[in-house]
């Protein structure tokens, strides 16, 4: 629809990102309700290359990353009905699905630590329109906030979340005390939390 594209190109980036996040949320909901393969393909095309990038930054080679991407996407297909906006945006949920799979692969024996974190969410709550919209805005708000926090805080969050470096190792690498690593990360997080609390 060229008219829609034109309209979207005139919209501020924030709104466009919110439209995208809503589209992904709708696709996930269609997978959950109708096992809709076309909706799943939309999710695959959006998330698979992003998850693969994350995995490669964390040290997987291309082949391992591609295997794990497939597993993560199949987990998204299988767990779609377990998603609720309580868990955060669709991107946040996709992040946790990929994180959990990767860590369980690394730790194997008796290690389903992150799976246990999936157990206690509120069940089957029908999200209000307000809540769904808040979730759709969440990724954009977080990205914008990440762009606004001081570089020294953002750098540490990226080392943790993208590159998978433990805090003690960050301290060694950057030759700063562990206490400083933690306090910078806390500051970045507190800023983001304020923003998230405003929109939800």
């Amino acid at each position, binding site marked *: 629809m060229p008219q829609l594209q034109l309209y979207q190109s005139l919209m501020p980036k924030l709104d466009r990102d919110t439209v995208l996040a809503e589209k992904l949320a709708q696709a996930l909901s269609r997978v959950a309700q109708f096992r809709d393969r076309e909706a799943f393909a939309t999710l695959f095309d959006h998330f698979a290359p992003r998850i693969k990038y994350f995995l490669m930054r964390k040290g997987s080679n291309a082949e391992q990353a591609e295997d794990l991407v497939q597993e993560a996407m199949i987990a998204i297909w299988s767990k779609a009905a377990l998603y609720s906006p309580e868990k955060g945006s669709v991107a946040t949920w996709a992040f946790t699905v990929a994180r959990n799979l990767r860590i369980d692969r690394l730790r194997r024996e008796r*290690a389903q630590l992150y799976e246990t974190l999936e157990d206690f969410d509120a069940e089957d709550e029908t999200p209000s329109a307000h809540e769904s919209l808040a979730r759709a805005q969440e990724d954009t708000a977080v990205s914008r906030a990440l762009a606004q926090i001081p570089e020294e805080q953002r750098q540490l969050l990226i080392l943790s979340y993208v590159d998978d470096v433990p805090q003690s190792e960050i301290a060694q690498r950057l030759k700063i005390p562990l206490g400083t690593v933690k306090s910078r990360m806390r500051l970045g997080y507190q800023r983001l939390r304020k923003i998230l609390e405003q929109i939800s």
Partner: protein
Amino acid sequence: MNLSHHLDDATLLALASGTIAHAHGIVAASHVALCPACAKALRNAEAIGGGLLAEGELEPVSDMARAATLASLDGVAPAQRKPVRKSELPAALDHALGGLNLDQIKWKKKAPGVALFDVPMPKGSTSALKLLSIGPGRVMPEHGHGGEELTMVLKGSYTDHMGTFGPGDVADLDDTVEHTPVADSGETCICLVAVEAPTRFKSVWARLFQPFVGI
């Protein structure tokens, strides 16, 4: 549950990003399971991962992998919600103990009124997880920490200069803190304690128990 001692934000970030040491992760996840405030804070911390993923770069996925994924969907059943668990222990700890409950623990006596159990960890863990049982009225010696230590009370309570810690409360301590916990509730206090692996910080348990057993 009304808890008064919570996880440090830096610990929540380590849990959310997936970089937390395994033993510390089990203690943190056990607290989160009991503490709605920390559960909400964890979701906010996970949103950082979502934001970075959403904004992140793309690494093209092969057509073969895409086709293989789409072709395998029919064989994949929808995941079911897990049944409500019967264990009295938080799920992460229940898992780590392989379903044992606290009455079935084979304690190793370390000193009068003090016993210890090593929770098995996956191979190659950089952290160790212990159950610690402190008899009523027993005083732990003042001790600092060689490395990061995360403790959650499972039963009973103890008091130190930071206050009283009851079931579900966590003491999230780094190596700068010294404290002298007293099991003061008239019942045995059972704690779950994550420490950095002994290979990295040999002194932790030595220091902790030295006054009792002279290790």
